[in-house]
C-alpha cells in the first residue's frame, strides 16, 4: 500500500544542511498497524508528514496504492489527503469554537458530500468513539481523552485507508491513553492501516510492527507476535 524507495529529506538553512531522512526504504501493507519509534529528532514526524503529504521530500519516491505522489498538484494532493488519509495529532488540533459535530464534519465538507451523507458518517464515527451524546459540546468542555477520541472520529469519518497518528497519547494520562489505543486497535481490526509515531515502548509493542528510525535512517523493522502481545 505504501512504498518508499530511497526516500530522502534535507532541511537547509544558510549555514547547514540537515539530512532528516536518508535512503529510507519501506513497504507497509494494507491493514498493518505499525509504530514508528526512535529518539527525539530522529525523523519520525518528518516521515509521518511526508507519508501524509503534509511535507515534500527531496529524493527517492513515495508510492501510495502503486501511484507516485511526486509532482502531484496541490489540488491532487489535497484530494488524496482528504480521501485516503486520516490524521490524528498529539495536540488533537480541534477548532475550539466549533462544536464536536462541526469539527468532525471538516474533512467531509471539503470532499463535497451532501449534508445528509455527512450527518450519517459523523454519527457513525461518534458512535464508534462513544461520544454521540456530546455531539453539540465544544472541545473545551471535554477531557483530553475525549478530545482525542473526537480527533479520531474526525480522522475516520471520511473512511480513509490510512490513519497517521503522531504521538496520539502523548498528552494523555495512562488510562485515557489505553482507551485511545484500544480504539485505534479496533479501527485497525476493521481494516484501516495505521502508522503511529510513539515514544512509548508498550504502545509500540501493541502495534503489530515496529519501525525504528535513528538519525533519519530506517534502523529496524520488527514484526511482533500477536500472541506475545497478549501474554505481555
Amino acid at each position, binding site marked *: 500500500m505504501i512504498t518508499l524507495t530511497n526516500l530522502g529529506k534535507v532541511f537547509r538553512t544558510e549555514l547547514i544542511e540537515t539530512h532528516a531522512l536518508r535512503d529510507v526504504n519501506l513497504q507497509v501493507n494494507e491493514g498493518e498497524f505499525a509504530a514508528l519509534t526512535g529518539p527525539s529528532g530522529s525523523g519520525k*514526524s518528518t516521515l509521518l*508528514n511526508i507519508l*501524509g503529504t*503534509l*511535507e515534500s521530500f527531496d529524493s527517492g519516491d513515495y508510492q501510495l496504492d502503486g501511484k507516485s505522489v511526486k509532482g502531484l498538484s*496541490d*489540488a491532487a494532493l*489535497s*484530494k488524496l*489527503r*482528504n*480521501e485516503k488519509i486520516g*490524521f490524528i*495529532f*498529539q*495536540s488533537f*488540533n480541534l*477548532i475550539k*469554537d*466549533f462544536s464536536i459535530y462541526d469539527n468532525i464534519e*471538516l*474533512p467531509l*465538507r*471539503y*470532499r463535497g458530500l451532501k*449534508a445528509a451523507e455527512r450527518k450519517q458518517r459523523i454519527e457513525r464515527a461518534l458512535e464508534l468513539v462513544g461520544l454521540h451524546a456530546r455531539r453539540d459540546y465544544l472541545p473545551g468542555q471535554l477531557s483530553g481523552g475525549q478530545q482525542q477520541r473526537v480527533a479520531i472520529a*474526525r480522522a475516520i469519518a*471520511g473512511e480513509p485507508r490510512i490513519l497517521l497518528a*503522531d504521538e496520539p497519547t502523548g498528552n494523555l494520562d495512562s488510562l485515557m491513553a489505553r482507551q485511545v489505543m484500544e480504539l485505534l486497535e479496533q479501527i485497525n481490526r476493521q481494516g484501516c492501516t495505521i502508522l503511529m509515531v510513539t515514544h512509548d515502548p508498550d504502545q509500540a509493542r501493541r502495534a503489530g510492527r515496529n519501525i525504528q528510525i535513528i538519525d533519519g535512517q530506517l534502523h529496524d523493522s520488527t514484526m511482533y507476535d500477536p500472541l506475545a502481545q497478549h501474554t505481555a
Partner: protein
Amino acid sequence: MEQLFYYLKVSWFSVKRAPLPYMLTVLILSLGLGVFFSNATFYYRINSDPLPAKSDKLFFPMMLLVPYQCSNCKPPSVLSYSNVAKLNASDIPSAKAAMYSAGGYLRLNAEQAPTPVTVRITQRDFFSMFDVPLLHGSIWPDNQPRDELLLSKATAEKLFGRTDVTGQQVLLDDRLFTIIGVLDQWQMLPKLYDAFNRNYLNPTEDIYLPLESGYDYNYLSNTNSSTFEDADYRKLATDGRTKAIHQLQYWVQLDTPAQQQAYRQFMANLVADEKAAGRHPSAEANQLVMMRDIVSYFDGESGDIKAFAIVTLLFLLVCVFNASHLSLNRYLSNQYEFSLRRALGANRSQLQVQLLVDMGLMSTFTLAGAAIIAYGGIKLMNYLWPSNSLFASWDLQLMLALAALTLLCSYLVTLYPSLRASFGSLNKQLKE
C-alpha cells in the same frame, strides 16, 4: 448556498475569536475610505458633466475685439453688447444666447419687505441650450425687451407658497414685472454656463430676465464686467450698447463638426472685417471653447479640492497599508486553522474562496463604517465651506463606486495575508 453560509460562519467565528483587532482593521479602513469618499463626492460632482449629451456641442466663443493693441493677449472672457450683435449675425449655430448675472430685490408689493435674489439676464435660447425644464407657463417668444420674467420653482414657492403663478405680478427692484413662467426643479451642477471666476460652484439663479430689459434697466453684471474705453457703467441702456463695456457671456450650440468648422471660419472672417475697419488692432486670438473644457480654460479647477483629494488618497493608502498589517497579524494568528483545514483536505482554491467570503464580510462592515464616516465628513465640509454644499449629494453611481472601492481596498488588505495563509507550511503549526 449552504457552503457560502458555512464560510460565513467560519469567518464570523474568526471575528469573534479576536474582535478588537478585527474592529480596528475595519475602523482604519472605514476611516480611510470615509475621508477619501467625502472628498471624492465633491470632486466627482464638481468634475461631472451636467449635460453629457450636449457638452461637446455647446461652445463659448471669445474674440479679442477690443479697441487697443495687445500682443499675446487672451481674449476677454466677456463680450460687449456690440460684439455680441456681430456674433449674433451668424445663423450657423442651432441656438445662441448672450447672458450675464446680476442681483436684485424681489417682493410681491410695496408693503412687503424685499428679498435679495440672483438674476440671470439672458435670451430665449438659453432655456433650450441648457435643457432648463419648465413647470408652468412659457418663455419669451423673442429676444425683445419686455417686463416679463421667469421664476425658479423655489422662488415661486417662497414668494407665493405655490408654483402655478404665471400671470401674477411682482416687483423687481420696484419695477413691475409679469411672471410668464416657472421653472421645474433644476440645478445645473456644475453651472458651466457661468464658469469664469469659479462661479460654476454657485447655484442656478432665482429669476430670469430678458437681456434687452436688463440693459434698459441698467442691470450691471455682478460677476465680471470691464470697459476698454471711456464709458459710464451706470448707462448700460446707452453706453452699454454702444461702447466697449464687456460683461456678456455668449454661448452657441454647434451640433456637427461641420458647423463648428464653419463657425470658426465665421469668427476668422469677422476678425478680418474688423481689422479692415480698423477695429481689431491686435493679432487674431479667437477661441471657441467646448463647454466640457470651459473650467480648465479659465483655470477654475478648485486647487483646494484637488490638493485635498491627493491628501485623502494618500491617507487612504496609509490606512490600507495599516489595515493590511493588522489583517496579516489576524491571519497569522489563525494560521493553525488554515493549516489544519489543508491537512484535512482543503485545497488552496477552497481556502481562497473561504478568504474571499471573509473579505466580503469585512467589506460589508467597512462599507457601513465608510458610509457613516463619509456622511459625517460631508456634513463637516458643508459646515466649513457652505458654498460647496450643492455638491454633497450621492447618487446610485457614486454609491456603487464607494462599494466597488471598498471591495477593492478590502481585497488589497486581505490579499497578501490570505496568500501567506494559503501557502504557509502545514506541518509546523499542527505539531505545536
